[in-house]
């Protein structure tokens, strides 16, 4: 019953122990979904085999997995960054819509003659600023008014998605297009493919680079240290000289910038344009990823690849075995629940040994 306002989930347990629990939670989720499939009359072994083939069975499959992982790495880092500072950023969905939309519109509005090495960074930066504002606002409202950041983030998610949808439909609709989407970006602004005939682009390198930046910030900078202090014990951090209001706003702003990159690089990489409602809940998946990765960049990248492979393989599983492709959402939901409940895993383990 001890009141605690922050998520010091990362710091509490030993590394190996939390890794072990994470693995168990994942294995347990897969087993439970196998039982569900069995109960519904599917063959889980064939289904999982198809899932694996669809996600790692060929060069195309692997590039699809990595393509799906890229936005997940960004949002995983975003949620992890906020959690380190003791905040729960479930606003990633809104931040990535604002980022993706703002950068796409900037890219389309900038004069055609402008060299790409100026216009592309400018457009990306514009998107990141939009993400920072959308994230920073949550931090500001929390720090100044002590309003639960989760509630504010939910409202901002819907506002962002509906606003961008409105603007695309009303003002930026591609000519002759049936689906609400902007015009395709100038060829020079689209990131090059890594694997031919796939959607995997160099945005993968940017995602991995942001992982390195994340690691560097927490390992080698004063700001990273302050964020950690704030997350572990806000009042102690305040006493110790951390400007808590400013740091709270900054943490959410940077988290928002990271999340916005998920949208920005879907626009400049995967799709080459902004599409209304393009995100299948990427921002929410980021929460699962940050928890599995325990807020560590390498863990977040591996967890993002795991979820990317689920999304990539689910299609194959649906085609081969008739299971709905939405089964990846079931696995994802269970993983979130079990990762967040170490006490449940502990309970299961103790029962077995007793």
């Amino acid at each position, binding site marked *: 019953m001890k*009141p*605690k306002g922050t998520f010091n989930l990362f710091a509490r347990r030993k590394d190996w122990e939390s890794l072990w629990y994470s693995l168990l939670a994942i294995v347990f989720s897969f087993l439970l979904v196998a039982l569900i499939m069995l109960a519904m009359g599917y063959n889980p072994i064939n289904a999982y085999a198809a899932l694996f083939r669809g996600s790692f069975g060929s060069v195309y499959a692997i590039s699809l997995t990595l393509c799906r992982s890229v936005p997940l790495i960004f949002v995983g880092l975003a949620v992890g960054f906020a959690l380190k500072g003791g905040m729960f950023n479930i606003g990633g969905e809104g931040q990535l819509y604002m980022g993706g939309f703002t950068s796409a519109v900037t890219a389309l509005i900038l004069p055609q003659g402008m060299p790409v090495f100026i216009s592309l960074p400018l457009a990306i930066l514009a998107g990141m600023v939009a993400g920072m504002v959308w994230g920073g606002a949550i931090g500001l409202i929390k720090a100044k008014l002590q*309003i639960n950041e*989760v509630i504010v983030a939910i*409202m*901002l998610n819907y506002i962002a998605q509906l*606003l961008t949808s409105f603007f695309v439909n009303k003002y930026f609709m591609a000519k002759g297009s049936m689906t609400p989407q902007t015009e395709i970006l100038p060829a020079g602004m689209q990131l090059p493919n890594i694997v031919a005939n796939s959607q995997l682009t160099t945005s993968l390198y940017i995602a991995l680079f942001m992982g390195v930046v994340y690691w560097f910030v927490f390992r080698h900078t004063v700001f990273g240290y302050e964020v950690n202090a704030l997350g572990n014990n806000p009042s102690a951090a305040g006493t110790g000289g951390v400007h808590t209001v400013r740091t709270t706003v900054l943490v959410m702003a940077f988290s928002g910038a990271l999340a916005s990159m998920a949208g920005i690089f879907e626009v400049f990489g995967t799709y080459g344009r902004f599409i209304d409602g393009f995100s299948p809940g990427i921002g929410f998946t980021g929460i699962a990823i940050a928890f599995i990765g325990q807020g560590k960049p390498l863990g977040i990248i591996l967890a993002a690849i795991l979820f990317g492979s689920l999304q990539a393989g689910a299609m194959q599983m649906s085609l081969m075995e008739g299971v709905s492709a*939405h089964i990846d959402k079931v696995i994802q939901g269970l993983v979130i629940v079990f990762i967040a409940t170490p006490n449940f895993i502990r309970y299961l383990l103790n029962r077995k040994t007793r």
Partner: protein
Amino acid sequence: MEILTTMVNLLMMTFRLSIPIALAAIGVTISERSGVINLGIEGIMLLGAMGAVVGSHIAGSAWIGLFVALATGVVVGGLYALFVLGFKANQSVIGIGLNSLASGLTVVTVKSIWNKEGISGTVDQLETFTVPLLHKIPTIGTMMTDQSPLIPITLFVSLFAAYVLGRTKVGLRLTSIGEHPLAAATAGIPVMRYRTLAIIVGSALAALGGAYLSVVHSNLFVNNMVAGRGFMAIAANILGGWNPIGALLASLLFAFTQALRFQFSYIQMPEQISQLIPYVITLLVLVGVGRKAKSPAKLGVL
């Protein structure tokens, strides 16, 4: 006379659109008064919608479908309570996980039964009712004709919840738990039992709200048919000041903004803008009221 007819139509459409949001919002209020946040409401509504369709499909009766939805809500609420209260998991995280689980499980289940992706077959739909005699009154009579039984049920649930929370021992104890769980425990109130009960009742109401969408408003399940109404219910609860009647009024206000668009198509309010209004209003109220918000003091703290 024509204006009167339009007003009556607008009013009835507002009622119809408000039902799923209102039922879920009252559920959210009950749960949050005990100090428990449930972000999984959206998912519970989806599961309720699916449960109702499956129940109606198997039993051939939409009423049975509604009961299956209620039972689904009770079971899911019980599981939520087990993880959040029993295993002390973070409430927001479990809620998000539940939403993801529900959005997948509903579609997977529907496909395993009807072998169609994202849409079920048609099932028995709840009949409407017409009040005898009264429906013959001109204009007003349309309010008594072909109406959903869930309109009076929702009104009753709201009043009854307000009575229980504000006027009975159980309700006052529940509120005291949300304000100061330690003090309540010291006074000998079984905190866990009350919270579990509040979560289960809230979850069952949300599931009923979802069932309205699938077997009352329509006669099938469609992928993601709740479409954010769960989160809108959370907003309605806030706007309603954590009070069941307030939650109902806020839901009516949200529904009214949607009904305006349907009823007066010449206004040409874009769909997105009418959907935006509830979230903007709630955000503004939250920021405006700020620290003075009437939220339970220990909301989300176990």
